């Protein structure tokens, strides 16, 4: 995982992406007890978009990684040093989550992990069964800034959904 993060950091250093943060289950793992998952979700803010519709083009990322020898895919995941990675363009609340992600070190390698509050917002948006479980775990085990969470959820139209199912 250390090498994987070093490679991802190169994408940012070389201006191929503007920023990134670890999201999904692995980000949740930072804040709650260990649990099983398969892949590493990376939410990225691209350096540029194309056309009026602002289409996100991921091919510069794939081209760069292919030149480094990372061209083995398994489903939608690209294997980077033995770890299945999915690149997800960040928009709306996800983009805000990347911009406000927590800077941390993994075995000495700098990286960014989405905060528990933004993860709750993103899991709430997806609201699959596995997302609902993670929301409950985050609420029970992570230190949540409730005012900050409320602010995020209100601004992104997610408060009613949260209040209806999780707010005590």
């Amino acid at each position, binding site marked *: 995982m*250390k090498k994987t993060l070093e490679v991802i950091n190169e994408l940012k250093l070389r201006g191929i992406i503007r920023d990134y943060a670890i999201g999904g289950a692995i980000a949740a793992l930072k804040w709650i007890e*260990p649990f*099983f998952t*398969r892949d590493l979700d990376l939410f990225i803010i691209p350096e540029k978009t194309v056309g009026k519709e602002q289409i996100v083009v991921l091919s510069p990322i794939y081209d760069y990684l292919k030149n480094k020898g990372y061209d083995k895919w*398994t489903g939608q995941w690209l294997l980077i040093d033995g770890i*299945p990675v999915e690149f997800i363009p960040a928009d709306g609340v996800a983009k805000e989550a990347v911009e406000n992600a927590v800077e941390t070190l*993994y075995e000495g390698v700098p990286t960014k992990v989405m905060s528990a509050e933004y993860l709750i917002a993103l899991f709430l948006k997806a609201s699959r069964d596995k997302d609902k479980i993670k929301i409950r775990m985050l609420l029970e*085990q992570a230190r949540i800034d409730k005012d900050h969470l409320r602010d995020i959820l209100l601004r992104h139209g997610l408060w009613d959904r949260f209040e209806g199912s999780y707010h005590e």
Partner: protein
Amino acid sequence: MSDDDLKILTRHNNVVTLREYFEGERETRREQARLPFEEKIRILVTLQMLAVEWGGKKDVIVWEVQALHRNSEGGD
């Protein structure tokens, strides 16, 4: 008496109610949540190994984590 008041004998001959027993479990999970990120990733890799070897989930990729190999080799 509610189910939560049911008393059980645990380790070290401690008598606790079912409510206290589950609260203890929740506290253990909160403690696990405070483990270092690297340690959690090592536990994740162990879970992935279990999924493949014991659970028969052949499509699960066991992550390559350097520190895990170092530890298993008795290194630093």
